[in-house]
């Protein structure tokens, strides 16, 4: 499955569609937002991909705790890594957007704080992994932390932003974006271009990294 080519081609196709239709296609004219609404295809999609990848990472951590297979641990950490990269990109695209709509790159909005916390939690996960030298122990303890961290992160990103006032589109309802702001043209590009495109690209990156890790592990074993 991982070595098949069709989904990689599909990913490139989706992203080409996102970039061309995203920049050239029509968007509803909203005050303040204006053309910046196109950031939906990049910023919002990247956070969706982060969420998807963190869930995949969680599932692999649970699998590791059940079956103790080192490959599961490698998958968990690589998906978390790719997720954090997408989260960073999402944070950057978000603050560039905020510069033009809210007037500043960083304005201590609850959503920005939530995003920063999410990244810090997963950076701590990598620190924890590196602090343990025994590979088996490191895998088990970091899997436990991954499960715990995800459970703590979920309310941070999905419940608390609904309770506090925020400038972020979607205000008190949906934390990601205001579903009333976008029309059917945008919805088409968002759900059938941006999200699958970025997710498949991330999956591609992950699959390469996982294969490298598995090979280097094999290499180590054969050297011993």
């Amino acid at each position: 499955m991982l070595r098949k080519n069709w989904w990689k081609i599909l990913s490139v196709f989706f992203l080409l569609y996102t970039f061309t239709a995203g920049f050239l296609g029509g968007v509803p004219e909203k005050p303040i937002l204006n053309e910046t609404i196109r950031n939906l295809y990049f910023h919002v999609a990247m956070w969706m991909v982060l969420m998807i990848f963190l869930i995949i990472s969680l599932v692999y951590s649970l699998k590791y705790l059940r079956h103790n297979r080192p490959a599961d641990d490698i998958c968990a950490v690589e998906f978390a890594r790719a997720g954090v990269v997408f989260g960073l990109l999402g944070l950057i695209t978000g603050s560039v957007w905020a510069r033009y709509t809210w007037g500043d790159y960083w304005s201590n909005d609850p959503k920005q704080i939530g995003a920063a916390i999410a990244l810090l939690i997963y950076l701590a996960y990598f620190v924890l992994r590196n602090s343990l030298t025994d590979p088996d122990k490191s895998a088990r303890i970091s899997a436990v932390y991954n499960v715990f961290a995800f459970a703590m992160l979920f309310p941070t990103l999905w419940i608390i932003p609904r309770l506090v006032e925020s400038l972020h589109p979607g205000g008190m309802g949906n934390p990601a974006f205001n579903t009333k702001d976008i029309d059917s043209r945008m919805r088409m590009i968002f759900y059938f271009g941006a999200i699958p495109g970025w997710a498949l690209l991330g999956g591609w990156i992950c699959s390469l990294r996982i294969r490298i890790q598995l090979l280097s592990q094999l290499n180590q074993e054969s050297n011993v």
Partner: protein
Amino acid sequence: MISIRHIITLFKKDVLLEFRQQYSFYGVLLYVASTIFVLYLAMGQPENTVWNGLFWMMQLFICVNAVAKSFLQESRGRQLYFYSVCNPVHFMVAKMIFNAVLMLLMSMVSLMLFRLFLGSPISHPLLFIGISCFGAVSISLVFSFLAAIAARAQQNAALMAILGFPLIIPELMLLMRMSNIAFSDVFQSGLMSIVFLLFCFDIMVLVLSVILFPFLWKD
């Protein structure tokens, strides 16, 4: 029934150790007192928001110190002994209860010292005491589990701070919002929803610790 008896026995063991050694209690007490005194020297009597912020930061640092000590002081040999004689779930629950009680005590002491040194700007003292008890228990539950992870990683309290601070921010944010209600003269709505949310948080942490601790335990 048996499991409750086991938990009570383990809890008694922790309390007894504490009474015999008197190490973490007085150590943390001195830590609290000297930090609050330094705060007093540094800023006298601060205004409400600063008072509130300082109070919760103080709770955070007390918790890192107190809870870390209770887990990290167990030597390897002793841990092996516990491993052979008791159930990991009982062990974890007993530790959590002990840490919650220790933290409750500490937060009451620090609240008293805060009132003594940094003034008392609270308009609903009883409400604030309730909130700080609730907060102390919530924070101690999260840090109990993180201390268990850090103890497995054979690291000092530094690793616990790295793991714990990002995870605790949402809870601290909720607690600060809650305690802001106790500061204002006008009673605001929205208290119950935050209490409910924090309560759910606590239950979740408890359930997760009970499920995940056995994985940390086996070595």
